[in-house]
């Protein structure tokens, strides 16, 4: 099986979908001639032409609204926000139109929004955010946060096949840094099924996206302490795999929830609250949350490093839990 970067897996998966289904088309800023700011769609326009790989004006509203209208007419648009941060400009069209149209008007809106997200490279306040929890709060939207190349491809296929608006968060820090085996053939990975990234039975870290690797590195350190830590990668937040989380919480009795998004109102709070409601009697200690602090994402490397949860932070959190 070929080994690919996370970015190449997304690119190949998307290309495969364009070949597989004539209704699929790509729209976004600089996605055509330039191949996208991160080169995910490099070479696409040569293969599929300018009307299936559409360079859009700098208009996030028109991109998302345009995708919505095209979806209503039977297309399967895959729209790219150049950075996930810019989705704020299209909030209204996701939240007001796309998210609510099926519930109130009965018409499905099968759109995918690709959102390069996350920090770790001095992108500053406007090119580094992880806004997944804002959208997880909106009924009608699905939220996907793959961590591995194979998941990124398989979840992208599911996103395109899904009948609903799907926000597909691609962590930029993983794009070229993470490699993994990715099947060449077309396959899909269902939403709402967590993946055990690392086995363990004394503490479980529930996380997603780039934090899967931070958690895994921290688990390696705890292993040297003689503590066995499981890393559970949620893969999708809406829907999220409550059963897998609750099973792991009951089995290990100790849970650490980790995310790169900021703390207050982050999706980790939802997970912690659910565990408190459903698995309280099984816990040996408090559900611990590690997340970014409630600030914008700072630019300068020492500040950004202090902002994004680091392996040492997670190690400290795990040791705190291990002591119970």
């Amino acid at each position: 099986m070929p080994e690919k970067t996370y970015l190449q897996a997304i690119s190949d998966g998307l290309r495969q979908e364009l070949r597989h289904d004539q209704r699929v088309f790509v729209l976004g800023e600089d996605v055509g001639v330039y191949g996208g700011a991160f080169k995910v769609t490099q070479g696409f326009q040569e293969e599929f032409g300018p009307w299936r790989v559409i360079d859009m004006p700098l208009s996030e509203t028109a991109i998302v609204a345009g995708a919505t209208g095209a979806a209503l007419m039977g297309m399967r648009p895959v729209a790219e926000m150049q950075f996930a941060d810019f989705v704020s400009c299209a909030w209204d069209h996701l939240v007001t139109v796309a998210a609510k149209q099926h519930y109130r008007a009965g018409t499905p809106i099968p759109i995918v929004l690709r959102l390069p997200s996350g920090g770790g490279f001095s992108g500053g306040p406007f090119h580094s955010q992880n806004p997944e929890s804002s959208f997880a709060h909106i009924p009608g939207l699905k939220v996907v946060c793959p961590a591995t190349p194979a998941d990124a491809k398989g979840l992208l296929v599911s996103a395109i096949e899904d009948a609903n608006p799907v926000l597909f968060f691609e962590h930029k820090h993983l794009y070229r840094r993470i490699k993994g085996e990715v099947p060449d053939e077309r396959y899909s990975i269902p939403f709402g099924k967590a993946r055990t990234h690392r086995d363990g039975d004394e503490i479980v870290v529930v996380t997603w996206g780039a934090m899967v690797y931070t958690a895994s590195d921290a688990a390696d350190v705890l292993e040297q302490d003689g503590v066995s830590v499981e890393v559970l990668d949620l893969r999708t937040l809406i829907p999220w795999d409550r059963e897998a989380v609750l099973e792991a919480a009951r089995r290990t009795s100790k849970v650490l929830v980790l995310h790169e998004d900021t703390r207050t109102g982050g999706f980790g709070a939802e997970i912690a609250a659910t565990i408190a409601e459903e698995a309280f009697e099984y816990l040996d200690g408090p559900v611990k949350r590690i997340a970014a602090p409630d600030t914008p994402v700072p630019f300068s490397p020492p500040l950004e490093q202090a902002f994004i949860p680091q392996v040492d932070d997670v190690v400290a959190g795990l040791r705190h839990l291990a002591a119970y």
Partner: protein
Amino acid sequence: MAVREAEPIGSLQEVQEVGLDREDLFGIYRNMLTARGIEERGHILYKQGKIPGSFYTGRGNEAAAVGVATAMGPDDVGTPLQRDLGVHITRGVEPWRIFAQYMGRRDGPTHGRDGNVHIGDARLGLHAMVSHLPAMLPVGVGMALAFKIRQERRVAVAWCGDGASARGDAHEGMNLAGVRRLPVVFLIDNNQWAYSTPASLGHAIDHLADRAAAYGFEGVVVDGTDVLAVYREAQRAIEKARADGGPTLIEAVTLRMEGHAVHDDASYVPREMFEEWARRDPIERFRNWLLEHAGMTTQEEDEITAGVKKLLNDSLQRAEESPWPDPSTLLDGVFASADELETPHHK
């Protein structure tokens, strides 16, 4: 900047030249009467406490709505707004379902999930508006984008009010449509008031249609109380778009003859303004035209008005018999299922 200001239509011959026969004219009249009649009965329902929430009408906009909808082809689509009930009527939405929608009943097009004219019927090419005007305008542009990609000879009509034309959605949608020469017609219902804000505080240009030039397409101003002139301009624009000639921006000028919604007495609108525009009432104006130019007989008129009255009475009764939505269905349909895509609502 000078946009073209559309001329009124004077004679039956001119009307026939734009493709309408006498029966079509009576149909237009019937649709205008139906739209107004539904809203007049809506006021009564509201006073009876049968309409939850607020109630919005389009009195004064019947010609603009029906004129445009009459010009749309069967496979064309649109995103009409809260003053455009006539569009829904013209394209075949059944009045009883509209009453049921007003009252939050199960048989309304949204089954009680949304109210007022927030309705659509994908099979009729109509897609439900949202309150965040004009958010559906760039969605209409997206529909036109699909037609362009698939090289279909279909047209989208995207509505906007004078107030909402100030928003970025309108700009982004029109700009994209101009850049890609998409088969879309923009229809600005300029009723001169955005809630209580007069047009003079909403935009600094004489005609909103002037903006079309900035997007690289044609703009035209039409008297929105003249249903035949609206029809002619809409038909020209729609057929131009269908022939890959790109978008047109039509500004239909009217006056909103009631408040923003039922709670609003519109006391901020000068009385003389209401009086002036009442003399140009689109339905009365068209009735006089039919009498003068189409030789509508008393018997024909009576048949039309009696037919509309019976339709409305029957519809209202049927809507009142519609049950409330079942609270156990509250959670249904937040997400669509994949099989809905296999049997699409769109056409």
